[in-house]
């Protein structure tokens, strides 16, 4: 979401939004400054970023909490080593998902039906990479 300053006359951009002269405009879209004379990017921030969390979790156990307020998201799982057993929301919720070294797994969640993931590796060795992406 870069921020632009309109130093020229009032202009309308593609989406029909009018940017008055001498005003700032924040948008998700990167605008072509050559196409809009007078429009100057004054900040690249705040930037669009679909990644909510990324990192790895090591054996023997891990708890991965889905950040509050996140309703639509994709969970990308990659098992670098070991055999993680993954439970949805509670370890009493069986059967679990059983992954293995080299496994890549994607779960798309369109409503917040998962609150937390509990990971229990089958042995004391193992590493699970997790990316949570906003969709």
């Amino acid at each position, binding site marked *: 979401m870069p921020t632009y300053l309109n130093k020229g006359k009032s202009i309308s951009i593609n989406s029909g939004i009018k940017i008055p002269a001498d005003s700032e405009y924040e948008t998700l879209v990167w605008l072509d400054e050559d196409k809009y004379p007078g429009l100057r990017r004054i900040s690249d921030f705040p930037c669009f970023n679909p990644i909510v969390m990324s990192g790895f979790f090591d054996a023997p156990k891990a708890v991965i909490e889905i950040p*509050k*307020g996140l*309703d639509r998201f994709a969970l990308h799982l990659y098992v670098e080593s070991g*055999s993680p057993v993954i439970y*949805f*929301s*509670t370890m*009493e*919720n*069986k*059967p*679990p*998902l*059983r*992954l*293995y*070294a*080299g*496994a890549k797994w994607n*779960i798309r969640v369109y*409503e*917040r*039906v*998962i*609150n937390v993931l509990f990971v229990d590796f*089958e042995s004391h060795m193992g590493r699970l990479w997790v990316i949570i992406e906003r969709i």
Partner: protein
Amino acid sequence: MPTYRNDSGERLVIAGQTVEPGQKIETNVYYYIEGLTKITDEPYYNPVVSSGKLTLSEGAEDTIEIPESLSERFSVDVYVSSGEIELRINSTDSTPMILSAGSRHSEKCMSRIIDKLYIKAISDAEIRYNILKF
């Protein structure tokens, strides 16, 4: 599918459903709304219908059954952690797939075209499988 109670003292609309003060609502979704009190997390969402780890000695056989509750839209994922197996779909007379250590076989089924998987260990083998609805 957590269960919530409306303790806000006012009428709330949750996912298009009106919830009067004091009324309970079961939903698939976790909500964070002021005045909405979570009573229980149960029953939980779980896309995994069956999963397991099989350890087979050379020559041993085992069967993975697709749960009867699945009539459509499910996936079967079999991974051989170690050893070598023959995997037959639906019948012991089917032509087998030979899967060795590190091999994975996945099937996405829009209808119940798979009922059982028959596994025979060619050598000592360890297998993990997941059956998921989607």
